[in-house]
């Protein structure tokens, strides 16, 4: 009797699965037909619905929620000003939880259930890469503000990002320290996260290319608090310069503290995660003589000023991660401009983005390279006893 039940049960499941497979067959053939392509030059009636993926729960929510706030600020501003050619913008949010499996499920739901053609994301690289594997074949544009992994560069023709790849930042600071500060021996200490490893990789590769010797390359795991072993090893290699690449400023400050305690003498470079104004003002003694590359976030630019002021007005505090959040804010305005110029067809928007030059955003003047990565001017910041000085734009 029991085995009969099991067999019936299995047959029922097989029928359900085969039924679903059968009925879903026509779906993949849906990409834009020529007729639709023509019609899509204008914006269809009704609101423009965008998918939005972010890390809304778990550890990554530290970044995800501020990025969500910046995205919503842009959407609210646009809607309050009358929308995109009279069409309101709507966002459908999904939580990607910063991991590939949930990132994929979130993207799949936005594509197939909500029938969305654009996904804006402030997501971790892992979730964004898994999502890109689904958005690209479905003809959906993925626009990311925070996934900075170099792997995303080649993830697809419809994959864009408004924040530059780690490959760029590592190269800029390597070039600066070697060419301008005459470092011959460089070293790096980095956290085992995709962001930090991306920077580490581009820094070491570029350093060798620019003729310096990489004498130290230490890593540590997220959550570590004692870095003395790595620091002693780095000290014995006596580099002219050390690049500190943490995922979060808390760990970075710990490293700077322990470097000082151990009498480490070299030019200190830090990644832009350590440029939070609160972090610097609370640790002036540690930021005695530190260099860092960062995309231009010049508060004197009208659009940057508007972003910073409106954010303060809407949320009653300054942006937590200004550069990343400016990128999230910019991607919505960039899509708005694209829709107004060429309509909502993905291919037309893609072509517009490739052609756009020095688009004025809160993060800086943006153009895109052939891979959909932004070409944004980097500035070198020199922090002396907690005071930030902008040494101006720098191109490697």
């Amino acid at each position, binding site marked *: 009797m029991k085995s009969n039940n*099991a067999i019936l*049960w*299995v047959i029922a*499941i*097989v029928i359900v*699965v085969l039924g*679903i*497979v059968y*009925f*879903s*067959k026509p*779906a*993949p053939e849906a990409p834009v037909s020529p007729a639709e392509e023509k019609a899509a030059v204008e914006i269809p009636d009704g609101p423009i619905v965008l998918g*939005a993926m972010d890390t*809304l*729960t*778990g550890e990554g*929510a530290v970044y*995800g929620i501020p990025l*969500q706030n910046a995205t*919503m600020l842009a959407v609210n501003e646009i809607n309050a000003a009358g929308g995109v050619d009279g069409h309101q913008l709507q*966002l459908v*949010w*999904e*939580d990607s*939880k*910063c*991991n*590939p*499996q*949930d990132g*994929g*499920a979130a993207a*799949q*739901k936005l*594509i*197939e*259930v909500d029938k969305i053609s654009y996904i804006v994301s402030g997501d*971790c*690289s*892992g979730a964004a*890469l*898994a999502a890109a*594997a689904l958005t690209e074949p479905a003809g959906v544009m993925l626009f990311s503000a925070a996934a900075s*992994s170099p*792997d995303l560069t080649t*993830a697809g023709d419809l994959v864009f990002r408004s924040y530059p790849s780690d490959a760029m930042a590592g190269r800029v600071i390597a070039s600066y320290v070697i060419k301008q500060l005459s470092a011959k021996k460089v070293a790096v200490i980095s956290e*085992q*996260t*995709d962001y*930090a*490893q*991306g920077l580490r*990789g581009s820094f070491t590769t570029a350093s060798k290319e620019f003729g310096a010797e990489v004498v130290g390359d230490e*890593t540590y*795991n997220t959550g570590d608090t004692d870095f003395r072993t790595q620091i002693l090893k780095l000290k014995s290699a006596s580099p002219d310069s050390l690049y500190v690449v943490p995922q979060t400023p808390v760990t970075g400050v710990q490293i700077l503290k322990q470097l000082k305690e151990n009498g480490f003498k070299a030019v200190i470079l830090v990644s832009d995660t350590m440029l939070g104004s609160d972090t610097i003002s609370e640790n002036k003694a540690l930021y005695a003589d530190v260099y860092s590359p960062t995309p231009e976030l010049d508060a004197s630019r009208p659009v940057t000023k508007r972003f910073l002021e409106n954010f303060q007005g809407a949320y009653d505090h300054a942006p937590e991660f200004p550069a990343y959040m400016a990128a999230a804010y910019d991607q919505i305005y960039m899509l708005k401009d694209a829709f107004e110029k060429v309509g909502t067809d993905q291919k037309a928007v893609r072509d517009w983005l490739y052609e756009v030059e020095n688009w004025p955003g809160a993060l800086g003047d943006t153009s895109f390279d052939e891979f959909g990565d932004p070409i944004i001017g980097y500035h070198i910041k020199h922090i002396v006893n907690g005071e930030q000085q902008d040494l101006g734009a720098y191109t490697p």
Partner: protein
Amino acid sequence: MFPFLIYILTLVCIYAIIVMSLNLAMGYTGLVNFGHIGLFGIGAYTSAILTTKFDWPFVFAILSAGILCAIIGALLSIPSRKIKDDYFALLTLGFLFVTGAIFINWTDMTRGTLGIRGILRPEGFTEPNSFLILTFIAALVTFFILEKVTKSPFGRVLEAIRDDELVAESLGKNIDRAKMTAMTLSGFFVGIAGVLMAHFIRFINPASFWLDPLVVALAAVVIGGLASLRGSILGVVIVFAVSESLRFLSLPSTMIGPMRVILFMIVLLVVILFRPKGIIGRADLD
């Protein structure tokens, strides 16, 4: 809608394999194995590395991954001779941390936190529909093999070990060998699940094999019930049905993430409150 359903059903099939194999160790044999997700990751990484770095065909990669995980599962059972119950659970949790550290730090092979991209689906199964059929067949085969094992005299030995190891031993049963066999089988199947996951998502990184999937697997085992393969499948279906249907609930955008987690946990609590042994469970965790 259907492609999204297919995506979720594929995940359900993969998780069904994970949870059934976990239930063999945990529900039938009484070995609470938190390292199960570590083995899942080893399976995924083995196949991803073999197919992307060394261009191995999928069939050899999946077999190698299964065998490697079976061997590691067998090795993991050795300490259970001396370390019992909660202490064994802690030890296997340690194993999960070790595998996580390896995935992150063995960068030459695993690319560390950057993860492995460009994992291809096997030929003939590149479309989501056909890949679902592949995972469905794999889940079905796992079910029938484990059903056969657990219903056999050997299965009863496993249950005897779970209920009272001393009695089982005094009846002349070789409990060490039985535990090792159970963990070997459990390791083999979860390794296969790992391979399927890697080739399904086509991108893996260490975050894919950390605490999130462990929570899902444990929740499914507990909800479905210990020592019941049907319960395992039911548990997975419930966990996915609840968590995925919450995506369709319209919530204010600022509350979407936390509210879904809260509602999911409330549903789990209700199930456990009314069915403490799980829905069709036959055993209690001591």
